């Protein structure tokens, strides 16, 4: 009973993050696409937690742990590309981050 419920929730979360794929496809901006990838990462972590609970397999939680730990990496690489040579400070107020 509870197992089914957890899998149902996993399906719902999966379908809901799939909706965000539209933004990754259409954009319009790169920021939109990047945030969709971020959303899939965090949603994927949620799905992993739900499957772990449905199957009562705590080892699956480690996948969610790794996904959560590394969720922001692509976004960091992305914001670095707005600076010259990818080496500047993305939070600087100058144009090229130097």
């Amino acid at each position, binding site marked *: 009973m509870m197992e089914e419920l957890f899998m149902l929730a996993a399906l719902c979360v999966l379908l809901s993050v799939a909706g965000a794929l539209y*933004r990754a496809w259409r954009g319009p901006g790169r920021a939109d696409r990047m945030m969709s990838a971020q959303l899939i990462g965090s949603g994927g972590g949620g799905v992993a937690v739900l499957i772990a609970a449905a199957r009562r397999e705590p080892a699956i939680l480690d996948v969610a742990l790794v996904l959560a730990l590394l969720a922001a990496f692509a976004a960091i690489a992305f914001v670095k590309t707005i600076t010259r040579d990818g080496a500047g400070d993305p939070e600087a107020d100058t144009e090229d981050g130097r």
Partner: protein
Amino acid sequence: MSVVELITAALLAIGVFFYFAGTVGILRFPDVHSRLHALTKADNLGLMAIVIAAGLHFGDGWIAGKLALIWLLALFAAGMAAQLVARAALSPEHNA
């Protein structure tokens, strides 16, 4: 159904609701900064409800700790990424 199971089911429903809310926001909001706002807040609330539901289901202290760590890491990652991407989206060249 026991009380714990009822609470777990309710938490799952709340979690799924917030994930859907986040997706509706990212699809319907008019500009990139509003969409960022929808995404990073709603989803982490959804994840929180799911993590608590899973913790109740496992009923184990160590696992609950790991689940809390998962949620905190996701929260940090989303908050930080939202901040940086929001700034990047201000630059018109890279928003195109």
